[in-house]
């Protein structure tokens, strides 16, 4: 294996079986995975469909930065894979699938948690939910988004 990580931002449905297979490593005692799927309800609305928009080249770069930082946290972390799907998809399918292969489990848990938390904070991908009543909405969490980067919050906007 030349590279110890794999990143993909793709319109295709995620091949989870393939990712699980390539997560295996004879040096690793623990393989952890996270699958993010869109629930059928959000704030009481029934979600019928959803769509992700991605600034794909930047998303890939941001995920790469996160992964490099995670590898630096603990030498027991051996392999990381992160695939994010975008475009329209039905409720219940994986929008994101992450794997971490590590020597022991503590560093694996830490790495996987850090990976998903950081992706949700810093990777330029946006979710739009479509509801039963015909409405749709972009999700823009109000917090946790500007912790260290430039935005107008940092300035006096009066």
């Amino acid at each position, binding site marked *: 294996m030349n590279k110890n990580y794999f990143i993909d931002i793709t319109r295709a449905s995620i091949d989870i079986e393939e990712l699980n297979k390539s997560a295996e490593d004879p040096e690793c005692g623990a393989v952890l995975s996270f699958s993010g799927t869109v629930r059928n309800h959000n704030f009481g609305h029934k979600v019928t469909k959803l769509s992700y928009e991605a600034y794909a080249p930047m998303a890939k770069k941001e995920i790469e930065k996160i992964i490099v930082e995670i590898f630096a946290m603990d030498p027991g972390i051996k392999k990381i894979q992160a695939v994010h799907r975008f475009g329209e998809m039905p409720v219940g399918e994986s*929008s994101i699938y992450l794997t971490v292969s590590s020597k022991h489990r503590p560093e694996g848990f830490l790495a996987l948690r850090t990976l998903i938390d950081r992706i949700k904070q810093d990777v*330029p*991908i946006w979710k739009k939910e479509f509801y039963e009543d015909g409405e749709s909405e972009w999700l823009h969490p109000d917090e946790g988004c*500007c912790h260290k980067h430039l935005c107008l919050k940092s300035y006096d906007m009066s």
Partner: protein
Amino acid sequence: MKEYKVKLFAQLKDRAGQSSWSLKSEQVLRTSELLESFFAEFNDLEKLKAITRIAVNEEFCFEDKELTGDEEIALIPPVSGG
């Protein structure tokens, strides 16, 4: 006269009705000025104004900086991937 072209995504794109927005200026612009100008033009995007980030050449800015107009610039409203 320089034209600063800015990529838009998600709600910003929907609101502007197109995937990019541009600003012409005689002077050198700073990233914060570009943010200010965009949200002055679309002043109903109150909720996103303070918390939208700006990316230059596919990297978030950590500090305000001068732009030449040759960069790939994008406005990044709070993300909701995962």
